[in-house]
């Protein structure tokens, strides 16, 4: 996974691989550290690199939604396709978070052009 910040205090979490109970807690810890240390106004969780997700992924998103609501920050769920979308639809999360599509990784990287990559990328596994 990859966590990026842009120049507008937004945070992008690019998830990858499989999200199940076994690896959800490590993902959760990394996201929560990023939220705690940067206090972003908006967090995007991007599922474009995710190949499998079960209800542990929904719990992960719901939990981050609750934390961000306390901070007064907004959650965006990005690029849920196919089976990931199908699981997500069962959750009713679409009433709580905004679902968006787009190349956010590129957008975030472009917003900080000129800075070294090390400053942009945090918590890379």
């Amino acid at each position, binding site marked *: 996974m990859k966590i990026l910040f842009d120049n507008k205090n937004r945070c992008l979490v690019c998830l990858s691989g499989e999200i199940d109970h076994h690896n959800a807690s490590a993902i959760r810890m990394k996201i929560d550290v990023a939220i705690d240390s940067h206090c972003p106004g908006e967090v995007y969780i991007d599922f474009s690199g995710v190949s*499998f997700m*079960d*209800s542990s992924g929904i719990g992960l998103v719901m939990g981050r939604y609750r934390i961000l609501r306390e901070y007064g920050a907004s959650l965006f769920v990005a690029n849920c396709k196919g089976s990931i979308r199908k*699981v997500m639809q069962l959750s009713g999360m679409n009433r709580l978070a905004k679902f968006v599509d787009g190349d956010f990784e590129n957008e975030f990287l472009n917003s900080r052009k000129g800075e070294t990559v090390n400053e942009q990328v945090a918590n890379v596994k």
Partner: protein
Amino acid sequence: MSRSQTLNELKVAFPSLSENESLARLIVSGFVSGLNPMIDELSDVKTAVSEAVTNCIVHGYRNTVGTIKMHLRILEGNELYIRISDKGCGIENIERAMEPLFTSAPDEDRAGLGFTVMESFMDKLSVRSKNGNGTTVTMRKKLESRVK
């Protein structure tokens, strides 16, 4: 449930370690591959298995490690039969447990949607449990084989 002829069968048992969640998904994928399932059917089945196995690990054998049994069958008419069982703590109130969004572990970021996923991704779901004596989840799904 009606009795249909079993065309293929696999029984496995493994300890309730979380790394075995992905192993269980791989096993079921391999088992049904001969039926040449559609990609979305395959992910439905993998997701349902992941939910049932995770429940054994997270709830059934909470704070302990026990054995999870998975029994897979291919029945006449391209039907997949899956039975996943544990000998853990059991479910006190099955009806309540199966309600969408009910979870006994809300502080662990559980959504309470595992049974909802199994129910909507498979054709049939039945849950048997005895308080203190384990849980058995049985699921069935007819697969539309791709025409080769």
